[in-house]
């Protein structure tokens, strides 16, 4: 009550209500850009183009750590590099809330089916940044008996960031490139035939399948690695 009195006493001070009820557009929505377009601005654009721009400007990353690169990935999210400045720095713990998965590390035979499953759980549209040499080709571990020779053998990849590990700046550049591509509506073609998860019963019956037949249920999901002719 006392404030009302003081306001009526001083005509220069507006009440909050009065300010909001004033004429025209609420000044909070004003901006330099809006002013530049004139008094009743409108933009003509394609819906797709607008959506792509929105998509690229606000991306939720999946909190997904595998190996060494994940340490540099954390540094990219953390203080100093702060990926959030680029509209792409909110790590989500659940794949169901994420748009982008950064694959930060070596993928081995036991983990590939799980990574595939995590990728499958992400809603469309989804994007993949592969971080580090291991996800490009297997990197320093390429000759290992247990190592998948690149993330692309399991899931499609949009951006490769090479390095062992890449510096945070390199990862930021990769993410910025991804945003650029998304804004332009581009996506990477799938060039390799990836390893798929399939039911054990659907595999071609060969020596190995016969041998494992009593250990694995027909309906179990399996991934079969043909190391000799790796895709």
């Amino acid at each position, binding site marked *: 009550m006392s404030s009302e009195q003081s306001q009526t006493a001083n005509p220069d001070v507006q009440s909050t209500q009065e300010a909001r009820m004033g004429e025209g557009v609420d000044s909070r929505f004003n901006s330099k850009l809006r002013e530049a377009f004139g008094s009743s601005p409108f933009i003509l654009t394609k819906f797709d183009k607008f959506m792509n721009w929105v998509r690229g400007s606000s991306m939720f990353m999946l909190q997904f750590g*595998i190996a*060494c690169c994940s340490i540099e990935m*954390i*540094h990219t999210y953390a203080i100093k590099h702060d990926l959030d400045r680029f509209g792409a720095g909110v790590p989500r*713990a659940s794949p169901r809330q994420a748009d982008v998965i950064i694959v930060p590390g070596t993928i081995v035979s036991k983990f590939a089916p799980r990574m595939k499953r995590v990728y499958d759980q992400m809603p469309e549209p989804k994007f993949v940044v592969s971080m580090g040499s291991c996800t490009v080709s297997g990197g320093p571990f390429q000759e290992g008996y247990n190592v998948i020779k690149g993330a692309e053998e399991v899931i499609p990849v949009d951006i490769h960031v090479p390095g062992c590990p890449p510096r945070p700046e390199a990862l930021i550049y990769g993410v910025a490139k991804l945003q650029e591509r998304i804004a332009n509506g581009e996506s990477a073609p799938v060039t390799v035939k990836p390893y798929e998860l399939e039911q054990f019963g659907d595999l071609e019956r060969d020596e190995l399948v016969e041998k494992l037949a009593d*250990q694995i249920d027909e309906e179990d999901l399996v991934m079969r690695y043909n*190391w000799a002719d790796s895709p």
Partner: protein
Amino acid sequence: MSLEEPTPDSDAELDVVGETEDGLDYDALADLLGDKVRTREEHLNAEGFVIRPDDVQDVLFALRDEAGFDHLSSVTAQEYDDRYESIYHLKKFDDPTQQLSVVVPTSKDNPVSESAEPVYRTADWHEREAYDLVGIEYEGHPDMRRILLPETWQGHPLALDYDQTEPQIVTLAEHRNPLQEDHRAGDDSDTMFINIGPHHPATHGVLHVETVLDGEQIADIEPDIGYLHRCEEQMCQQGTYRHQIMPYPDRWDYVSAGMLNEWSYARAAETLADIEVPEYAQVIRTMAAELSRMAAHFLAMGTFALDVYGDFTAIFQYTFRDREIVQNILEDLSGQRLMFNYFRLGGVAWDLPEPREEFFEKTRDFLNDMPGKLDELHDLVTSNEIFQLRCVDTGVLPPEEAKSYGATGPVARGSGIDYDLRRDDPYGYYDELDWDVVTEDGCDNFARVLVRLREVEQSARIVEQCVDLLEDWPEDDREIQANVPRTLKPDHDTEVYEAVEAAKGELGIYIRSDGTDKPARFKIRSPCFSNLQTLPVMSEGEYIPDMIASLGSLDIVLGEVDR
């Protein structure tokens, strides 16, 4: 458990067989075992007693109870042209320079050996790994199955006849919906099976923890590892000693502990090839290693806060701010932020960066800010009542259990075990410097965190002394590398097992040479592998959030657990 300095010549220890004032008396140990010792082998820093595969438990019990070998550091398995061999590397927590290898050969057509699991609990996982990778079976082992590779894997990859091009099939069976009926433990039970990981924010990487819950308490827990088994031992066996192996240690424990890991390989290879490292290089190594340790402990602190508070915004960022500074210093020194590849056999890659004054100033600035930053962390974390409620008296690891599981590093020191290889088995420049081994008697999550924070203080002390030394080092005496032949070919069949104190504990390397420029067997004894084994001891009967805290306080790195 004594917190005093180990005193080998005190009265109480005179009863221990084989212990003399100038080290181990291997003849007395051989007398103790009598005709169980078939022959004796000479390894570089320990003698090897060759025994029969069905005498393993008798021999190890005698050595543990009468000769005081309470630490099974590692189990190495390997295949020769005519036999399989398991080597048990024994040490003492009181004096790790007293080492003994127990060598157990088994025949090619029947590779079965008696399990050491009843003597040392840690043998459980080590023998499973030996079975998985090499193919030796252990009789009397409680749970003989694969540990690193998927259950359906064909063949043993480190065996001589393994064909890497054969196809393999891997299942996704463990990831069925945990609420499905087949995951409940029968009709009359109300326990429930829950998968944690392998992709979960609290597992510090790709660890899969299978838990059975009774209400909210953990009835049974089993870590399932191998999601990052990237064949590190095979990689090292394919590389030449001089240059091709050194990049890999950085990638075992990848949370900036690279320098410490490189030192483990450097130390083993230098003993193997009898290389003397110049003193100046040792000081640089010591400084670099301790900076690495600080960075690693900061990460441990930050992620632990993340586990306990779910706090990504404050403590986590504080620790990462400090890590960035350490990484900058190490980048100036080595040229890389994370994978330094800075050590060389016989020294380091290059001298301190010019201008030296700038480097010293930068390092000193960091050290001068250290006390304030640690106070800040103590204010934020350890003196916080909520934190104490979560951590004090949860995840208790009694010292006897810790020893039996071969726990080392901050995990052992948090249980009051006064064991630090930097002091007990000195290398580098540590014995010339003034610093203390940190121990805490709490045995709980809180004690382990406190040990790490206090170790950062000690590391800062060490770095400061190293900087002083380097600053005054005469300019014409700055020798960074010993003279090492271009191609190293250690003598045929030389065997060495050496360990250093890495960020997580005792990191041991076993190398057997076969006369070529590549090792015939390269075995990594990872501290995290042994430390993670203690998780069931800490967590059974506790609540799930306490298990998460215990897992965080163990500070495992999956790259090192799985290798």
